[in-house]
């Protein structure tokens, strides 16, 4: 199976502090990869490396290579904006823009210079359908996105990311602010989306990782302790620390 990301010797420093230590891993294409680990273990930091969102943080320094489609994303020649159209992101809290549902989804394509309303309409509809939201909102596309429920807002954010037709969707604890029903809807959606996209998801819920992911990487103190198929990690983890963490005996 093909890989969507190849990470080689990745080190990340916040000033003097090293947040990620010598990571080496590859992430499979069209699979859901879960990143688990206790708070502050660097999994979100790692996720934000993958679309260079860490660039915005001052004093953040990165060494090593992250290859996507054979290109190092930290190469000076790589265009950050292009990268981010390939690697979409969904955040912890639903964060729709304070505009209409339509405009939210059309925002990304518009920024790329697509002005034709017909094309935009098509993109918006397709994205909303893929995000399993179209049925619920098709009659109020031009109403404010702030009027949607939390779960709907998060699916709107997913639709917004899909509108860019990315290779990969990064999800940073996408359900931590949602109720169980909205959560299970998002999980179902992830199951559906992995047919077309590679998904990398950071989660604090062990159950979520076990339910939705194909591969799991366990982070601890900025290192990857173990990465394997989710089946192996949850049935027979090789590392004692992994077992302690997934069984809730950590620390």
């Amino acid at each position, binding site marked *: 199976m093909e890989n969507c990301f190849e990470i080689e010797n990745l080190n990340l420093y916040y000033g003097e502090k090293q947040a990620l230590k010598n990571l080496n891993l590859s992430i499979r294409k069209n699979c859901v990869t879960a990143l688990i680990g206790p708070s502050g273990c660097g999994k979100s930091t790692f996720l934000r490396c993958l*679309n260079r*969102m860490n660039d915005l943080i001052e004093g953040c320094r990165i060494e090593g290579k992250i290859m996507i489609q054979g290109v190092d994303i930290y190469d000076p020649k790589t265009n950050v904006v292009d990268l*981010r159209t390939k690697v979409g992101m969904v*955040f912890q809290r639903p964060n729709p823009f304070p505009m209409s549902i339509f405009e939210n989804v059309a*925002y990304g394509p518009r*920024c790329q210079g697509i002005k034709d309303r017909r094309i935009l309409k098509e993109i918006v509809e397709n994205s909303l359908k893929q995000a399993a939201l179209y049925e619920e909102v098709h009659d109020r596309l031009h109403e404010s996105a702030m009027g949607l429920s939390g779960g709907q807002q998060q699916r709107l954010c997913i639709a917004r990311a899909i509108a860019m037709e990315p290779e990969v969707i990064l999800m940073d604890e996408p359900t931590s602010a949602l109720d169980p029903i909205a959560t299970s809807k998002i999980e179902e959606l992830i199951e559906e989306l992995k047919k077309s996209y590679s998904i990398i998801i950071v989660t604090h819920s062990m159950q979520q990782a076990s339910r939705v992911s194909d591969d799991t990487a366990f982070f601890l103190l900025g290192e990857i302790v173990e990465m394997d198929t989710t089946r192996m990690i949850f049935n027979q983890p090789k590392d004692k620390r992994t077992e302690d963490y997934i069984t809730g005996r950590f620390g």
Partner: protein
Amino acid sequence: MNVTKKQQRQRTLKDAFLNGLTAFSSMLSVLVLTILLGYVFSKGIGLVNVDLLRNQYWSKSAIVAVEEGTQSGTFERPEDLPKEAVWSEKWGIALIDAVSHEKQALVLVERVDENSVFAATVDTSAGPNQGKSYPVVPGLQVQKIDFTDQQGNANFTGMLASETAEEMVHALDQAVSIRSVFIKTPGGGIRGSLIATLYLIFVSLLFALPIGVASAVYLNEIAKKNRFNGLIRSGIETLTGVPSIVYGLMGVSVLFPITAAFGATTTNILLGSLTLAIILLPTIIRSTEEALLVVPQSLRDASLSLGASETQTIFKITLPCAIPGILTGVLLSIGRIIGESAALIYTMGTFINDSPSLLSQGTSLAVHIWSVMSGEQPNFELACAISILILVFVLILNLTVKLISRRLNKAWY
């Protein structure tokens, strides 16, 4: 823990004293403000009416002549005429007693019949309008009416003879023909200052708003956080505290040449606006910065993650989200403009101009107050009336600010 009765009592006393002190202070300030407002309202409310807003400040006098020929007739008193008005059946004119804002007795025209001789008078005073039609209309002050009486003698009646409306109508009944009327337009209005103030608001915001918002965006969103930008920032903060009279001085000396280039020969409204724009800059920058800070980082992240450039993010997401906050800044600025006087006395002069233009002198409402109060006979009533207008305006602005900021808080989560 053992607490003795004495300690308890001491504590109770201390608490009561401190609580009492705070309550007293707030009472005091409320009392002072109430008295102040009460004074302003009681003095000025009598003058606040539409005429105040509409009338010019300076009254204009004119002598209008009546055409020759048979002049008198029989005119019926209109039914809807107020009781106080006195109707002259012979001449078809109604006069009424009034009091000027300077508390002088006046006689005003209340009604003129369309067939009356007073409806077809011609301006005879020297000037460009000489010879043109200048009918006597309601609202004008009648100073003097020259007429020929039954004996063929020239006579006159009017305020110059300290006559009341009734006496004047009585005198007119004796007249055979009217020769001329000395009329005066009503004065004491603040129309000119109102227009000048609107000019100030519009022009100074025209300059201050784009520059202020742009620099706030630069400082908050684009600039790296280094020492130089820190210096700029603290510089701007210092500017907020500079007394406006200093800005006025700078306006006259530094900005006057700019307005002179546009053809200004004296201090003018444009100069005042430019000076005000500079005074407003720090306010607008600060409020815009604060509005930008409130915009959640998550929205910026979302925009960037969708492949928008940083500039697109600023102009498509951050700035639109900050608009309510910026608007608050604008309203605060308008309040500042309305209240400003010191800097404007230098830069716009104190001449109350009834038809202000950008390059002429003029007064804002606040300077208008200064003007009427700085004469030999301070006009408290007019000053208070203008103050009421300013207060009402500021009150409306403040309420709007509150409303907008409440909506701003509701907009996110």
